[in-house]
């Protein structure tokens, strides 16, 4: 039963591996490009284990942004996980405390989506299933990071093979992924303009914090949406 659940999880997670693998390799290659060693890149994938925020982290590190701002930005990009953990709490009441720690550590976007779907279907959310699904994502993520970093190290100039455009495009895809959120367009417009102006008048790395604060303050000042939003909505982010 437990073993069956585990393998069911592994099979279920397989499509995720296929779509996430290029990003793992991309992270590894770009991490090396931003001054990481192969070890550092894999170490980050193993401990942080949150692709989009890892990309943000290496970009800021490469720009010599202050450490507190790097950590805060990673925290901010991962903030949506608070919604995920709040939402799956209903389904994992029967896990032990140690199992819960592993559960939350491994709670990436597809893991959350699949757990909710499974619970909605009425299938039992067992720890064995959860772990199987998680491992088939976690282990290849490390392996792809290693491959990307290893080969990235051999490529001298990332510009020569067009790697330098991939991070801004990837971040743009993340920004587009949030477009259903309240105040999305004004926030993006104000943060973009403020960061461009700050880059010009103040300089890097301050454009990140100045631009981000402008958009966040705007969102706090805009009138709140009339309708109370759903407590937890799954968005296709990262």
């Amino acid at each position, binding site marked *: 039963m437990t073993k069956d659940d585990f393998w069911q999880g592994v099979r279920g997670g397989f499509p995720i591996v296929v779509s996430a693998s*290029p990003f793992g390799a*991309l992270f590894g290659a770009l991490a090396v490009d931003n001054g*990481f*060693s192969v070890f*550092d890149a894999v*170490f*980050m994938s193993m*401990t*942080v284990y*949150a692709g989009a925020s890892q990309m*943000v*982290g290496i*970009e800021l*590190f490469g720009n010599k942004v202050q*450490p507190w701002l790097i950590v*805060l*930005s*990673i*925290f901010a*990009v*991962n*903030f949506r*996980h*608070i919604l*995920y*953990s*709040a939402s799956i*709490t209903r389904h994992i009441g029967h896990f032990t405390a140690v199992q819960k720690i592993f559960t*939350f*550590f491994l*709670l990436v976007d597809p893991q959350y989506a699949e757990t909710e779907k499974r619970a909605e279907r009425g299938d039992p959310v067992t720890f064995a299933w959860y772990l199987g699904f998680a491992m088939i994502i976690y282990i290849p993520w490390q392996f792809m990071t290693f491959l990307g970093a290893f080969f990235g190290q051999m490529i001298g100039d990332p510009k020569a093979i*067009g790697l330098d*455009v*991939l*991070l*801004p*495009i*990837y971040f*743009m*895809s*993340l*920004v*587009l*992924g*949030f477009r259903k*959120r*309240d105040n999305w367009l004004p*926030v*993006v417009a104000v*943060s973009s*303009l*403020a*960061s461009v102006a700050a*880059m010009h008048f103040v300089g890097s790395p301050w454009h990140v914090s100045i*631009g*981000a604060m402008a*958009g*966040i303050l705007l*969102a*706090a000042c805009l009138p709140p949406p009339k309708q109370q939003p759903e407590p937890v909505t799954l968005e296709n982010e990262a």
Partner: protein
Amino acid sequence: MDSTEHMHLILIILAAALATFLTRIGGYVMIMQMKRIPPRMEAALNAVPAAVLSTLVAPAFVYGGWDVAASMLVAFVVGLRFSSLWMLWAGWLVVMAVRHFAGL
């Protein structure tokens, strides 16, 4: 990178890992305590990712050179319909083509 700098990087990664874990367990802790976030704070928090990420996109577009800008523009159009992987492919193809033919 010297060894002090490398130690800093390892510490940053560990702090990032802890911060990420806090977001992943935070909702559970909140539900257990049943506290509500004030609406304006929630609106501000909701805006954080798009706000931070925009600051990584817009300056690259404006100051990155016209080859990068062209590549990002095409990727944007692709991204309105297709997934991020296609955006990356499209943007990469454009920048490689532009650099090849313009001799950049």
